């Protein structure tokens, strides 16, 4: 298998899907001539023309609304929102249209659209350009929310998203774009609602997604190399639908868990996972589940302050060391 960057695999996948299905088309700000702020759409305007790679005005509510309409009429729009933070302008189209139309109109038409958007902090983009708002969307029935952490998962899940008949929020992370990894060739897809145990372990489980799942995997692998604790990592990949079974099976094995998320702590994805585990795995819990999340502040611009506010490797290591069962410490 070839080692490909997260950025390249997204670009390849969009190209392949546009070749496969002529109804697939792209919309977004600066995705055509400029090839996208993060170059995910590089070369696609040249290859497919302006009809299928549409540069839009700076008006998220407008072009997300257009995408909903296009999807209702049989096209498969893939919309890029330049950063996750701008999605606030299109909330009504997503919440009240994309996620509701199939239900409210008696199943007359599905809304097969994808919104791709990069979120997350750590790039000194300050408070309004560094947010993780996935919990807002994962809360909405009728919407599917996907957040891969590896190039392979990005390929498999983006294909599924484009071919899926539901509106999908496909969450990318700025700090993952340059990550490289092996990617299966060919028509590789991953079903939604399947978490992945990215590393087996027996002392405790770290549950995460997106960039933090990649970090958790690194930390757990290092602990194993250094012959410390045996940490299992579960990448949920799909926030809605959530794979409860894989989470519960991991707790049955380890008895202890940490939810590691870049989002603010309160009312987050972590809270949902903790609630799920106490519902479905109560008899297997040996300790309260820990949430490791970021400071509940608008993210500062200053690099030292930004680092201090975002949760990271150190916070995860501390939590693992604090939670590990006594008899499993070496």
């Amino acid at each position: 298998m070839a080692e490909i960057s997260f950025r390249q695999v997204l670009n390849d996948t969009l190209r392949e899907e546009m070749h496969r299905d002529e109804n697939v088309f792209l919309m977004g700000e600066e995705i055509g001539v400029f090839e996208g702020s993060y170059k995910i759409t590089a070369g696609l305007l040249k290859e497919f023309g302006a009809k299928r790679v549409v540069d839009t005005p700076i008006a998220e509510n407008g072009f997300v609304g257009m995408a909903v309409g296009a999807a209702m009429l049989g096209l498969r729009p893939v919309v890029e929102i330049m950063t996750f933070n701008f999605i606030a302008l299109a909330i009504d189209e997503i919440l009240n249209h994309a996620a509701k139309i199939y239900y409210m109109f008696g199943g007359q038409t599905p809304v097969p659209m994808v919104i791709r958007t990069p979120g997350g902090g750590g790039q000194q983009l300050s408070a309004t350009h560094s947010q993780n708002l996935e919990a807002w969307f994962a809360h909405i029935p009728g919407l599917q929310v996907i957040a891969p952490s590896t190039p392979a998962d990005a390929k498999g899940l983006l294909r599924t998203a484009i071919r899926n008949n539901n509106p999908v929020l496909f969450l990318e992370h700025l700090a993952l774009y340059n990550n490289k990894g092996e990617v299966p060739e060919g028509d590789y897809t991953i079903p939604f609602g399947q978490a992945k145990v990215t590393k087996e372990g027996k002392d405790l489980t770290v549950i995460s997604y997106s960039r933090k799942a990649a970090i958790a995997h690194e930390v757990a692998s290092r602990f194993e190399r250094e012959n410390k604790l045996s940490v299992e990592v579960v990448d949920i990949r799909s926030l809605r639908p959530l794979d409860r079974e894989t989470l519960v099976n991991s707790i049955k094995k380890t008895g202890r868990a940490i939810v590691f998320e870049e989002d603010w702590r309160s009312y987050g994805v972590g809270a949902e996972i903790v609630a799920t585990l106490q519902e479905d795995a109560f008899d297997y819990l040996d300790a309260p589940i820990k949430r490791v999340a970021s400071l509940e502040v608008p993210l500062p611009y200053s690099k030292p302050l930004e680092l201090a506010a975002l949760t990271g490797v150190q916070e995860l290591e501390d939590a693992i060391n604090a939670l590990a069962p006594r008899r499993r410490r070496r």
Partner: protein
Amino acid sequence: MAEVNMPRLSDTMQEGTITRWLKQVGDEVKRGDVLAEVETDKANMEVEAYDAGILEQVLVQEGETVPIGQVIAIIGSGAKTHKGGQSKKVSVTKQPGQTPAVQKDVAVEQPSVFAGISAQQNGIGTNGVFIKASPLARRMAEEHGIDLLQVKGTGPGGRIVRDDIEDFIEQRAISSPTAVQPQPEPVGVAPTGISEVSMGDAEIVTLTSMQKTIARRLTESKQTVPHFYIGNEIDMTEALKLRQELNAALSEEGIKISVNDLIVKACALALEKFPEVNGSYKDGQFVLHKKVNIGIAVDISSGLVVPVIRDVNTKGLRTIAREAKSLVAKAQTGKLTATELDGGTFSISNLGMMDVTDFVAVINPPQAAILAVAATRKTFVPIDDQPVIREIMHVTLSADHRILYGATVARFLKEIKHLLQNPFLLLV
């Protein structure tokens, strides 16, 4: 707000019974104040306050027994004073306080919850004992038939977690390999016929902590320590004569040396020569103790205690007599401290005053041996082929065959015999 936990007051303590509250709900408490008296497996002890404030809640009533680590009272500002607090309604809530503007990674401590365990579930009396255990630990305990009261919690706030259950299972496997597999019922024998018939006529006595400990420890000893026994007869005529002379000389000082004091001293000197008898078998190793600390079994109304005289080999008879007297008095009034009960390397059980001709004692682990001393009786013995009346005392040493062998024990007894038959050796 501070929780007061049932402290661990001795090596072997697993639970304690509150015998008396010296502070009442609403009383002001200073650090170091005695809050309550606790009966442990070994003695009556005091629970001191580590925090100052108002005693807000008393969660364990007098007469109730709880495992170590369990919260027994709450000291706080007085705002939440619960008069006559019932232990069944324990709810420890955090002060709402100020919510920090900024939160990161700090797991907010959840209010402690003491899940109730009913008598049916865990064989506990109806006086409401609450055990803090993780759901996993609870499930494992049920699967393995473990009484959570027997398990020491090492998790936050004394919570019993998986580690503790695994420790317990391991220890149980080591101490009684047979206990894990139930013995098959003998065929053709009506099961429990006798006990069913007699149950109606019997009085059921609840054990004190001490009695529970005695039952547990001695069962453990007999089941896990391979005992063997060697006896000997000691001519105490000279020793009794010496004792009489010493006591006559020391009467003005108010010191009275007992026969047992002489035996303690003789054992101490012999133990110096036979370090294995003063040792322990532990995890495939012999542990040879440098100190000679002899426990003397004392009969008390509710059972048996074995206070320890330390460094006996370095002490004279005068000191031994004084210390033994004081320990016996404390034992009978329940005033022994944990240190006075710990650290024994050898024990003596003397039933001489009860007119016992002969008996064997059960080893007090981790010690390697215990000397059972019977009564001294006038006996005809042949001396130069003529019957002569001598004061003969029968002793039996129970020994742990993992560390001690027959010949060693025989020689050890011979040394004691030599010392007691030439009692002036006890003085130098």
